[in-house]
């Protein structure tokens, strides 16, 4: 693409950043970020090697036991950071390998498109070698012959940094044939996408990787049984893979202690926050840190706004209330409150924000990004948008809210081909539960005058 002429607008250029200075980050407490530089430049190979880089690969290959890598991941209980929270060790133990089974693929899900999420970008732009190191370990454990980083097309800077880092790693013998003299072969290519949120769903991602439309596939078979080109394939999120090297180097017990007893889940998490807060940003914190601490690190709400509600981990998670700020943000605790940890990046809603308008915005996203395969999602979500638009304009009809309840229920877990529709239903159902009166206010009272303008039936 064309380059801009440099000038004043460089000050408006977006740069991914971590809001913790180097002095606060240490190898034994911040496995994901301790190597990051205060100047925000990428950690290239020399620097990375000086900071223990690729030591976990050396260790695992010297040990020569791929099953031991899986056992460590299981014992550490590393849970998927792409939003689902599935145990990575368990997933890896189910990948078909051995006997007649051909070697498969390791796919890094770098499609980061969940509204409110900006964590994988930081890891890729500033520390590409940690991801590569994690992928080598993943490939070794799962007997993958080749790896793909499925990167969303808009992440131009991530692509540039990753490709340079892959060249460095290849040249230094960390990728390619006979890695570090171990006899293990593995290489990685960056595959860039061309838009569409649904590509992040792991089976849609595999279709997209194969050069097809990104409709999800039926499960089973799971990717670990039959994925890309019918071969056993492992799909993991960027942050998940970045957790692997430290687990292998320092052990599962150490990993468990990182969360300091806040939760049964071990490790740290890249938590973040956005919306109208004073300092939106990202921090690496113990798993199970509370929403209150994250909001405090962000300097609280902008101006003298109050917090009305928040999403704990992206648009497809359920709304929580200010009273939930004291909860440890881990997969199980947030799940028990009728929401999901999701990606762990909070979105805050200020007191003056109409929940009806915000829901309309969220559902426009889900309706537009539906892949169109199943009816409740393809036809139900645009209908939800129209109902919300009407309520937003004070043009709702009696029964509209009940209809929203029904359309959301039709999108519930297990009723559609993939988790996109349940993701659209969860924020709607929780908004209707906590803020029903706001939706009711949008219903036209008998005898009241109709709105002058027609209901906008926007493109969805």
């Amino acid at each position, binding site marked *: 693409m*064309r380059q*801009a002429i440099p000038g004043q607008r460089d000050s408006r250029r*977006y740069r991914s950043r971590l809001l913790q200075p180097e002095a606060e980050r240490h190898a034994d407490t911040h496995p994901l970020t301790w190597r990051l530089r205060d100047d925000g430049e990428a950690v290239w190979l020399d620097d990375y090697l000086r900071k223990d880089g690729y030591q976990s690969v050396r260790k695992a290959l010297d040990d020569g036991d791929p099953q031991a890598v899986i056992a460590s991941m299981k014992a550490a209980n590393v849970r998927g950071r792409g939003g689902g929270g599935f145990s990575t060790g368990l997933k890896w133990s189910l990948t078909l390998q051995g006997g007649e089974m051909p070697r498969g693929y390791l796919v890094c899900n770098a499609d980061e498109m969940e509204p409110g*999420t900006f964590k994988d970008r930081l890891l890729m732009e500033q520390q590409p070698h940690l991801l590569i190191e994690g992928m080598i370990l993943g490939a070794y454990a799962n007997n993958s012959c080749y790896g793909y980083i499925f990167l969303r097309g808009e992440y131009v800077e991530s692509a540039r940094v990753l490709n340079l880092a892959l060249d460095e790693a290849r040249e230094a013998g960390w990728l390619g044939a006979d890695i570090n003299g171990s006899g293990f072969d593995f290489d990685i290519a960056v595959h860039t996408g061309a838009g569409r949120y649904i590509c992040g769903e792991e089976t849609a991602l595999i279709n997209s990787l194969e*050069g097809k439309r990104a409709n999800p596939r039926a499960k089973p078979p799971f990717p670990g049984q039959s994925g890309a080109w019918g071969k056993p394939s492992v799909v993991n999120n960027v942050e998940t893979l970045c957790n692997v090297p430290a687990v292998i180097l320092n052990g599962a017990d150490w990993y468990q202690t990182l969360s300091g007893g806040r939760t049964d889940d071990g490790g740290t998490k890249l938590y973040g926050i*956005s919306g109208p807060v004073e300092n939106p940003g990202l921090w690496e914190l113990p798993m199970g840190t509370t929403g209150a601490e994250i909001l405090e690190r962000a300097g609280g709400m902008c101006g003298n706004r109050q917090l009305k509600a928040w999403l704990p981990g992206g648009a497809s998670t359920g709304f929580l209330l200010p009273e939930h700020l004291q909860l440890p943000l881990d997969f199980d605790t947030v799940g028990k409150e009728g929401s999901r940890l999701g990606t762990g990046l909070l979105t805050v809603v200020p007191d003056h924000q109409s929940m009806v308008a915000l829901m309309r915005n*969220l559902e426009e996203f889900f309706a537009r990004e539906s892949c169109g395969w199943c009816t409740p999602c393809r036809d139900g979500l645009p209908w939800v948008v129209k109902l919300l638009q009407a309520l937003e304009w004070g043009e709702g009809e009696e029964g509209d809210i009940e209809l929203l309840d029904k359309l959301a229920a039709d999108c519930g877990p297990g009723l559609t081909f993939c988790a996109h529709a349940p993701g659209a239903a969860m924020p709607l159902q929780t908004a209707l539960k906590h803020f029903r009166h706001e939706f009711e206010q949008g219903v036209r009272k008998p005898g009241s005058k109709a709105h002058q303008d027609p209901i906008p039936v926007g493109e969805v």
Partner: protein
Amino acid sequence: MATTPQTTGLIGSDGFHLHPADEAAMLEEMAHYEQPQAACIEALKIVQRRHGWVPDEAIVAIARVLGIGPAAVEGVATFYSLIFRQPVGRHVVLVCDSSSCFLTGFDELKRALVSQLGIDYGQTTDDDRFTLLPVCCLGACDGAPALMIDADTYGPVSAGDLPDLLEGYP
């Protein structure tokens, strides 16, 4: 991995010329995958980088290089939002309309874009300079509201920043 076939030098119908360098780039991409079809999205992007968009004739030409049917290529081309099947301006403005931007001033930014460019979503300015499109969360929510112009991401962007930003894209 697929073996790398020789350049075909094929010319699409209606005189559309696949640039030899582009065809070579497609063949190189194909080598990264077990099946040539996997290079389809990249092939579309290669054409788009040169022409700004993907004309019908390019679909046929790509299909020949990949050795698959034009319908498969067209199916892919119409699925993905960053593949343009109509001409676009010299610069594409992608404005994020997702939740964090919505909560931090997207409406105002969008209004300012519409009034300063004189176009709405999907339209191109009369001088063929800009096309305006919405995009999902750009993963720049700590810099919301955010937008992209071509390959450059900006945020936070206020309505007042726009004249200066747009000026950089003649």
